[in-house]
């Protein structure tokens, strides 16, 4: 078509240019911002120890020891380790409820651990383990095994976990001849593809499945404990994580899972105990039960809040350490347990896990580990050195405590040397490295500690005097040495935490300037179109209505600036609905001041109230989506779960709403006189998919008892057919649009093509959203209707002449975009990776395929917030054309449509620009990985998707 002598490409190319600019900006900024820590390809070896200053004569191995017994860096304290990982184990799952203010139903379910910790105070202990964000399983496993701080970019690989290339605990185990047995979560196999002697991996991705992984582990765990063919056993249970994701922490499923674990752990401990006698299979076995991260009460994790980073670790050795060691244990956090016995809980950094396990097994610690050998875990196995105290230092008989301390100092010395070696190599090889001041400070601490070392090491032999004096002075000098090393290691960890993410400021700056430049282009294009419109119609352009321009600017600015604070990002949905309601109230005010009955405005306000409550309650998850209805009805009617009314509400109401949607489509279509044949195909196709969606829901619910065959069809076949019909309709409408040259009724044509596009997408989005889908889409349609209707006065006023003229007003477009944001949160999404509704990716499919499931997940995430609103932008134009009876020229319609698209794009681009500024400013913020970075990724993807969709839509509509 031609607008004022321009071809349709004249209107489309700005979209393409903007898409290009935005992609460039996002790419450059992301390269600078989401840089990974440089992974060093160096590995630790046994022979490295000769380079360390710690090879002093403190420990002369007796000649009869073999190399295997001796270990290579430290003296091995344990022979075998059983590591049981319970995914998403909250701290309060393990710690007794007496440690907390209120007793919650999920507490005190793992009684066996509490009992062991209180009864066997020196050999079993509960720790509060602190994970580093990002608290996703993959990152945590990587962090636990490498002893480093995995960075955020890996989160992007969560779909298909890549193998770890850095030096890690598992690699050290394998290369030093330890046999590793793995069972459970298949992420381990993805991370360590050829490290395990034997492995029993089970698929972890389907979150709806609570039992497959756990049952698999249970099947193999106990028999394996009786076998000799492993040195390290790793069992990873996933049920608690999945139960949290699907049902939340406060649910009967969660409690069942915990009780199941309790009985399994009881059996494991029994087996180990029974065989822990002299010469037994588990004489020197160390049991660790740990979580990889915590979870919020909604079952989410990924961020850096206390609930998510606080997990627990239970460690137990089956040989009691001597009583004098007890002074090592921290007794600052003690309470009586349920039986009134005193129980102390210490704190453990997950960063320290790799190096502590390496030290206990006598292995070299991973090259990139920056953790510290944990004193308390080390002390749990102290008994082993008892008999060797004399051999450790030939000259004197040492007390248990002093002997232990000497060993610990030795381990710490090697630990410090290894960390220093890594820090030195890292700052020498990586481009930006660490801040030189901090490096200097750390180096100073290290040299201070190491200069003391020879004194301490030699003092144990050379002192003369009464034995008691020597012992006291020895102990205190050892303690000083431990403190000096600890100070160094703690400051390294602090340095690494504060400065690890290596931001490339140049790239970030370039990306940001590119983004700013694109904003300028955006404004220029809108300006140009506005003047074009003006000259063409002799009417006012966008830039002439100052009031709406200023309020539009204010609205976008407030929303964009709200991203500068983490609290507003957390409550983004409420902020958006606050702004949306504000615009609605202003419209209501305007309408009343004209003394008209504000029907549409009141309806819109009512809808905003519903949306607002949906956003408030949408954060707590329920099964298969219908969270809003469920919570709302619980709130309003105080009905019990499982009552017949609720069943009707959650099962029948979505169907009724679905038929309302079909009826609405029928009404819209019936008024259209072009594309007659296609119209029927569209209607029949959409109704068919709606019926299939209904079938799918019936087969998922327990409303009726139906045969397995029908159930299978409903579960898997129906969704696939729905996807196929949607795709077919989409193709068909594109073809129709291509071959239809009817220029007579531009409005009709635009209307039918928009309807075709929306209804072909709607069925897929509906089935992915689950039962809340029809409700959300109905709200979208009615709210869209209200937005347009409430502005009709404005339109008709400006259409006073014979030939109607449309004038673009930015406010409805802003309302449109705010509505889209609200719907994103309303449908139970939020801007975090755990906010993705993974369950949706498995509707219609049982098995995981990265492209297929990724596509479904994208459609679910962005469907109702990006795809439908953007493709529906023409509705703003069409609906108001329906209200005015006058004819409007095609050029005018398309100029306005282009402006609407541009304004919508500008709003998204502005908010993303602010997100970029915010991420830039907050890049050292505590929550940068937990909150800002995921939000940035969502915004960036959203922007590119918006640009792409607008570009495609313009190709389609023009």
């Amino acid at each position, binding site marked *: 078509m031609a607008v004022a002598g321009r071809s349709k490409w004249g209107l489309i190319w700005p979209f393409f240019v903007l898409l290009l600019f935005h992609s460039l900006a996002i790419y450059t900024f992301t390269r600078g911002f989401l840089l990974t820590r440089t992974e060093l390809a160096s590995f630790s070896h046994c022979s490295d120890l000769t380079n360390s200053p710690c090879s002093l004569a403190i420990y002369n191995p007796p000649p009869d020891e073999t190399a295997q017994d001796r270990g290579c860096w430290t003296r091995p304290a344990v022979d075998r380790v059983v590591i049981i990982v319970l995914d998403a184990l909250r701290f309060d799952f393990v710690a007794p409820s007496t440690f907390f203010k209120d007793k919650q139903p999920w507490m005190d379910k793992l009684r066996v651990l509490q009992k062991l910790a209180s009864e066997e105070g020196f050999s079993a202990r509960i720790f509060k383990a602190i994970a580093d964000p990002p608290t996703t399983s993959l990152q945590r496993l990587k962090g636990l095994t490498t002893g480093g701080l995995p960075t955020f970019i890996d989160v992007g690989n969560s779909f298909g976990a890549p193998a770890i290339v850095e030096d890690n605990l598992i690699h050290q185990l394998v290369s030093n001849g330890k046999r590793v047995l793995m069972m459970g979560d298949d992420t381990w196999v993805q991370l360590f593809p050829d490290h395990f002697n034997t492995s029993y991996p089970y698929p972890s991705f389907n979150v709806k499945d609570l039992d497959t992984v756990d049952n698999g582990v249970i099947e193999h765990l106990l028999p394996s404990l009786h076998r000799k063919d492993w040195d390290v056993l790793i069992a990873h249970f996933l049920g608690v994580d999945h139960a949290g994701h699907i049902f939340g922490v406060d649910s009967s499923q969660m409690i069942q899972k915990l009780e199941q674990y309790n009985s399994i752990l009881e059996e494991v401990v029994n087996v180990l105990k029974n065989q822990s006698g002299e010469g037994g299979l588990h004489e020197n076995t160390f049991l660790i039960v740990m979580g990889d991260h915590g979870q919020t009460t909604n079952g989410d994790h990924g961020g850096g809040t206390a609930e998510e980073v606080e997990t627990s670790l239970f460690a137990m050795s089956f040989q009691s350490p001597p009583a004098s060691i007890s002074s090592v244990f921290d007794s600052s956090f003690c309470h009586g347990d349920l039986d009134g016995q005193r129980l102390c809980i210490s704190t453990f950094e997950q960063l320290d896990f790799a190096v502590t396990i390496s030290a206990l097994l006598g292995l070299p610690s991973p090259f990139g580990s920056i953790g510290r050998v944990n004193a308390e875990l080390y002390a749990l196995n102290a008994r082993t050195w008892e008999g060797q105290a004399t051999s450790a230092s030939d000259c004197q008989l040492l007390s248990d405590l002093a002997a232990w301390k000497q060993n610990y100092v030795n381990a710490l010395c090697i630990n410090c040397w290894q960390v220093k070696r890594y820090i030195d190599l890292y700052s020498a090889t990586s481009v930006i490295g660490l801040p030189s001041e901090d490096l200097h400070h750390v180096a100073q601490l290290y040299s201070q500690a190491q200069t003391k070392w020879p004194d301490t090491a030699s003092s144990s032999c050379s002192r003369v005097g009464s034995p008691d004096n020597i012992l006291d002075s020895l102990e205190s000098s050892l303690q000083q040495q431990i403190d000096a090393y600890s100070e160094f290691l703690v400051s390294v960890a602090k340095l690494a935490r504060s400065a690890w993410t290596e931001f490339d400021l140049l790239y970030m700056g370039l990306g940001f300037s590119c983004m700013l430049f694109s904003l300028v282009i955006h404004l220029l294009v809108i300006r140009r179109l506005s003047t074009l419109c003006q000259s063409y119609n002799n009417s006012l352009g966008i830039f002439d209505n100052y009031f709406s321009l200023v309020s539009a600017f204010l609205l976008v600015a407030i929303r964009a600036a709200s991203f500068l604070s983490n*609290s507003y990002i*957390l409550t983004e949905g409420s902020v958006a*609905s*606050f702004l949306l*309601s504000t615009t609605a109230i202003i419209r209501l005010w305007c309408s009343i001041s004209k*003394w008209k009955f504000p029907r549409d405005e009141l309806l819109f306000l009512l809808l*905003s109230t519903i949306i607002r409550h949906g956003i408030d309650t949408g954060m707590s998850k329920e099964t298969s989506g219908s969270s809003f209805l469920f919570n709302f009805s619980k709130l309003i009617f105080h009905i019990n779960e499982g009552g017949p009314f609720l069943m009707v509400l959650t099962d029948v109401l979505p169907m009724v709403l679905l038929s309302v949607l079909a009826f609405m489509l029928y009404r819209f279509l019936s008024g259209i006189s072009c594309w007659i044949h296609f119209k029927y195909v569209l209607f029949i196709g959409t109704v068919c998919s709606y019926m299939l969606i209904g079938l799918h829901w019936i087969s998922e619910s327990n409303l009726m008892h139906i045969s397995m065959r029908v159930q299978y069809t409903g579960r898997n076949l129906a969704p696939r057919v729905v996807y196929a019909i949607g795709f077919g309709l989409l193709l068909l409408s594109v073809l129709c649009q291509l071959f239809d040259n009817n220029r007579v009724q531009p409005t009709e044509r635009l209307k039918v093509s928009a309807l075709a596009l929306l209804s072909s997408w709607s069925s897929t989005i509906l089935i992915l959203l689950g039962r809340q889908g029809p409700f959300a889409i109905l709200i979208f349609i009615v709210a869209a209707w209200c937005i347009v209707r409430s502005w009709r006065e404005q339109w008709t006023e400006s259409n006073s002449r014979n030939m109607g003229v449309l004038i673009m007003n930015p406010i409805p477009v802003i309302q449109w975009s705010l509505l889209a944001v609200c719907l994103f949160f309303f449908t139970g999404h939020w801007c975090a990776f755990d906010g993705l509704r993974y369950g949706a990716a498995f509707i219609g499919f049982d098995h995981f395929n990265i492209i297929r499931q990724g596509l479904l997940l994208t459609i679910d995430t962005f469907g109702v917030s990006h795809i439908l609103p953007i493709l529906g932008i023409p509705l703003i134009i069409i609906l108001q054309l329906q209200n005015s009876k006058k004819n409007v020229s095609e050029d005018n319609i398309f100029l306005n449509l282009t402006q609407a698209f541009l304004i919508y794009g500008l709003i998204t681009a502005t908010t993303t620009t602010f997100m970029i500024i915010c991420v830039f400013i907050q890049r050292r913020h505590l929550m940068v990985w937990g909150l800002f970075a995921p939000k940035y990724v969502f915004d960036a993807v959203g922007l590119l998707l918006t640009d792409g969709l607008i570009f495609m839509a313009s190709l389609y509509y023009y």
Partner: protein
Amino acid sequence: MTALGFVKLRMRCHRERRKEGVGMGDGDIAASTAIALHFLCALGLGAGYSLAQLKHHLSLVADPAQTLRFLLVVQGPVVIGIYSSVRRDREHCSYWKAVARGLFGLPVGAVLNAFGAIVLGAPVGIKYWPSTIYWSSLMSLFTFVPALCVFGLSKMDWQRILAHSIPKEIVDCVVSLPAQGAILGAWLGAWPMPLDWEKPWQEWPICVTYGAVAGYLFGMLISVVFVHVLRGQTHVKAE
């Protein structure tokens, strides 16, 4: 008097006034009256707040519902009493009728304000009900009641008040500027609520009340300035 009867009476009042051709400017008030009115309203609010704090040891942060109720009890008579005395159609509506209008308007305005607050995100749980009711009644005193006391149900006046953001008469200033200030202040006062400072005053409706009161007082200040400007204009006209 039933509400319906009251409305009918008002309409009659209004019609009569129209018939006699009472012009717009006739109901206007003197600048000094306007300033005194603002002063008294601010005084009432201040007195109410300090009385609550000193005599009953009530603070807005600790017990918002009781404090708001106390403020309402003190400020209600002040606002209704003062604004009724500057009612528009003094010949046909007695002082007590204006007072009755104000009393009638209090719950109506409260419902409107509560609805607005809930739409914008105020919590709806049962434990918030008392404070929401008292807060919206106080907002009603700031916004709806003065207008009803002064204008009654005159369509023309209401339309003028709602449509024109810049008032042209002193009485419009006195009614609309503090009201607009209170609404804007309450709107802005909601902003700190989501922040994670974990201060007790971030609870609903404490900071919104602070915002509303601050906006109300600021609106009065602006109103005083406007009154001065308008008086200058009328003086020029008169000369």
